[in-house]
């Protein structure tokens, strides 16, 4: 594996190799995008929409994108692995985005070039980097990438681990326990681990009625925690902790009976300390917890590429000028999506999509010699407590004193929302999967 010095050298070493001509489109310029996920694809599309004269090239490892959003629905068989596949064809044919299917392994910021594993050198005028996250498997003693691929999948970057987890759930013994180890902040998709817990609980009611879902958490709270727990309570008889109970609508009372879903917070000893992959046991302050299926969602940092390119700071994510998402480390390099530091914005697909648009506008302005305009971002995360039980968090964000700030006010589904609204939110969640994919990729 290349260390960072080698990585930079790999970029510099090809100075004399034939670089792809950036000159042809010199008037408008060549924008290179690394990563064809939510952030990268949206940036490519909107750059072409805002200025069709730009030459835009996406460098992406995989020929087909596997979307992470909505991927927990594979576990319950609501969709298949193939339904997660998203094609790049429309970005090519309708918008004229160029694609290089290869992995970036070298970077020369002085020469403004990147190099790929396939030994191509690609020169840029502006570079957008949207590599997503890297999973810090080794942060939990006993866990590793190898364990995740064979025994205790994470399935937080969808692919073989999602398929393995699905197989394990379906083969779980009657009455078994599906343990989810939740990640510490900050992580991709804040309501995601809890939505997954809900969908698995719902699935078990039909297919493994004595089965149980147990969430072990290094945190004491999560975004949408009140509305999600109310959903669990109504649908599965979940016992709401006392400190949340006081805010619940009148009439919400715990049965006290064991429930098929349980959330053990850090304050209750739920923080994972280590695990034994052979016996599927998680060590916590509360003691050893034995799983039948173990889904570990480990701590996260920016995608490995961001580290290799030297774009990260001590936090493990990439500092940027919030107005444009231009890197604070390298000029003409923009970092968007999960890998970037975006203050109040969550690491979500919706955020990555909105950041990509702000960056596309800033790049078009910079190329035309104008200052970037005033930015605005939005985030909407719909989440499910059950197939027909939707909830959400929604925010509009503005730039304030150089930081991205959320406007104060209501942001969740009200706790006293009608069942009609709750069902509508679930319908919108499903519709959003389609419209959102279209806005990013078609």
């Amino acid at each position, binding site marked *: 594996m290349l260390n960072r010095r080698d990585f930079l050298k790999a970029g510099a070493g090809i100075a004399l190799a034939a670089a792809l001509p950036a000159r042809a489109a010199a008037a408008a310029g060549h924008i290179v995008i690394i990563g064809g996920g939510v952030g990268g694809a949206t940036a490519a*599309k*909107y750059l072409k*929409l805002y200025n069709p004269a730009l030459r835009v090239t996406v460098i992406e490892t995989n020929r087909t994108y596997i979307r992470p959003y909505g991927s927990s629905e594979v576990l319950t068989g609501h969709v298949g692995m193939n339904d997660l596949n998203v094609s790049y064809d429309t970005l090519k044919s309708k918008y004229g985005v160029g694609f290089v299917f290869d992995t970036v392994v070298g970077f020369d910021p002085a020469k403004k070039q990147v190099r790929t594993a396939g030994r191509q050198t690609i020169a840029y005028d502006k570079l957008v980097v949207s590599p997503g996250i890297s999973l810090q498997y080794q942060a939990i003693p006993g866990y590793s990438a190898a364990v995740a691929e064979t025994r205790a999948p994470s399935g937080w970057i969808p692919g073989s681990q999602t398929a393995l987890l699905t197989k394990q759930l379906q083969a779980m013994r009657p009455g078994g326990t599906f343990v989810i180890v939740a990640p510490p902040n900050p992580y991709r998709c804040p309501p995601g681990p809890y939505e997954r817990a809900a969908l698995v609980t719902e699935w078990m009611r039909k297919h493994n009625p004595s089965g149980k879902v147990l969430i072990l958490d290094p945190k004491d709270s999560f975004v949408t925690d009140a509305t999600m727990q109310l959903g669990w309570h109504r649908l599965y008889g979940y016992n709401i902790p006392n400190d949340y109970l006081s805010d619940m609508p009148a009439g919400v009372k715990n049965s006290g009976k064991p429930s098929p879903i349980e959330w053990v917070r850090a304050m209750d000893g739920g923080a994972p300390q280590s695990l034994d992959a052979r016996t599927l046991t998680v060590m916590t302050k509360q003691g050893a917890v034995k799983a039948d299926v173990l889904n570990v969602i480990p701590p996260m940092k920016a995608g490995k590429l961001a580290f290799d390119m030297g774009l990260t700071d001590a936090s493990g994510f990439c500092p940027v000028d919030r107005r444009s998402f231009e890197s604070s480390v390298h000029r003409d390099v923009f970092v968007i999506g999960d890998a970037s530091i975006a203050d109040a914005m969550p690491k979500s697909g*919706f955020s990555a*999509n*909105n950041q990509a*648009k*702000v960056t596309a*506008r800033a790049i078009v302005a910079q190329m035309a010699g104008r200052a970037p*305009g*005033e*930015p*605005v*971002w*939005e985030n*909407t995360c719909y989440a499910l407590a059950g197939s027909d039980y*939707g909830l*959400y968090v*929604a*925010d*509009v964000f*503005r730039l304030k004193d150089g930081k991205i700030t959320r*406007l*104060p*006010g*209501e*942001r969740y*589904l009200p706790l006293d929302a009608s069942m009609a*609204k709750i069902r*509508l*939110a679930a*319908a*919108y969640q499903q*519709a*959003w999967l*389609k*419209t*959102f994919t*279209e*806005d990013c990729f078609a």
Partner: protein
Amino acid sequence: MGTLMKSLVFACAALAATLPSAHAAEPSGEAMAATCAGCHGTQGRLGTVEFVPLAGLSEDEFVRAMRDFKSGKRPSTLMSVVANGFTESEIRSMARYFAGVKPSPAQ
């Protein structure tokens, strides 16, 4: 200061804090419209039934809808949250943008 007066001042301050400042620089209509696209389609051009396509909507209709979402007159799931994130003048410039976009043939 009387208690009533104090709470009035407080209420106004709280209200001001929840509204984007009218004096701050405004994003362009196109930039604001881009934040809607994840649900309402790129440039508001949408062919699905669940969300309302915004392309080609008359300015009045857009402004009225956003006002009614803000006031709660029009019930919504999360559109009240979104509408509250924009000033009156920003809503107008978004409305102008969408009114000028040709609707999608599927609309």
